[in-house]
């Protein structure tokens, strides 16, 4: 478990990495999610370093395997390791990624206190992914996965996921 302060991704490897998707949010590539910290050639092997979104995120093992498989398909040997520092933040999700989330029905992260504000009756800023209304309420701070909170729209009454802001 090392520390990888700067992001170093060999541009040639990007198209391969872009083919790997988060198993729990299949519209979001790991590049758009911002979990790839480095990818470079070291002695004929591609060394990829990824950072977990949450410490216990079970998707990380699958993502690691998927990366190795994606490189295998183009006859490249890859090794994946996990880095913890600096810790992942939702700011690393790209604008393309945010758009993909919204289209998939998950509200993209806004600001740190958006869900708390919703719970305590403060300002409402989380937009319903179905009808676009901002009259929404927090149902639970923890949703179907560690990275999401559960919201409900008070206009169209549909529930939806909100990607929690992590800074």
């Amino acid at each position, binding site marked *: 478990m090392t*520390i990888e302060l700067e992001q170093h991704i060999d541009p040639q490897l990007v198209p391969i990495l872009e083919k790997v998707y988060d198993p729990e949010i299949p519209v979001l590539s790991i590049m758009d999610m911002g979990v790839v910290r480095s990818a470079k050639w070291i002695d004929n092997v591609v060394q990829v370093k990824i950072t977990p979104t949450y410490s*216990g995120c079970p998707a990380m093992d699958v993502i690691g395997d998927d990366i190795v498989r994606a490189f295998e398909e183009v006859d490249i040997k890859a090794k994946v390791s996990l880095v*913890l*520092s600096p810790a992942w933040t939702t700011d690393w999700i790209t604008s393309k990624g945010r758009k993909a989330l919204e289209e998939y029905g998950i509200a993209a992260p806004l600001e740190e206190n958006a869900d*708390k504000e919703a719970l305590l009756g403060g300002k409402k800023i989380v937009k319903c992914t179905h009808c676009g209304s901002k009259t929404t309420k927090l149902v639970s701070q923890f*949703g179907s996965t*560690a990275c999401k909170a559960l919201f409900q729209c008070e206009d169209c009454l549909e529930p939806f996921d909100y990607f929690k802001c992590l800074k």
Partner: protein
Amino acid sequence: MKNENLIQYICGVADNALILGQRLSELCGHGPNLETDIALTNMALDLLGQTRSYYQYAAQLSDKDKTEDDIAFLRVERQYKNVLLVEQPNTHFGYVITRQFFYDVFHLLLLQELQTSKDETLSAIAKKAIKEVSYHQRFSSDWIKRLGDGTEESHQKVQEAVNDLWKFTDELFHMTQDDRLAVDSRIGIDVTTLKEKYYQRIGEVLEEATLTIPEIKWFQKGGKQGIHSEHMGYLLADLQYMQRTYPNMKW
């Protein structure tokens, strides 16, 4: 600081997360409603994830050929150094939330200090975990307020839990020999310095929740020395079942 002592220090921090994570996992499928069920298991997942990071590091430091699984599953009761608070059983939801709240407040204070540790790995784990634990504290504090300032019954039940679990809070601030060594090497945290802030934060939330702070001056201790309550054996039997029944099994 010798590796051996550092490993003990790391386990002292990590065992709390493992055991509390295990307690919360027991509630999977048994939460009072779907949302709290998911929340409690999500918190369990965070805690177990953090535990893995700590144990992987401890295994790396060990000169014997150990893995994170050996540390998690193959120790005997006396070798676990978690505080008594986290092993207390899931009596009812008020208890679960109170135990969580009493631990979360401490956990967050500890991690805030641990991120400045001279040890890069511990500091990295702490920085990652802080984000998760802030959420836990928010969740448990909110529920303390909802239950305390809720119905007559919820108030009475959560007050009972506060009174019962209060005696376990002082142990959070005890220092072991390994803790002291870690503090001397600027790796570990002197937990005694967190005590005042801890009781202040707890007091603020309890007050807002219209709950009374117990006037109990007698505290229970032992977990940090490996002397656990009667609940620990049952918990470990469950936790270690697979590794004991099918030694060396892997996922």
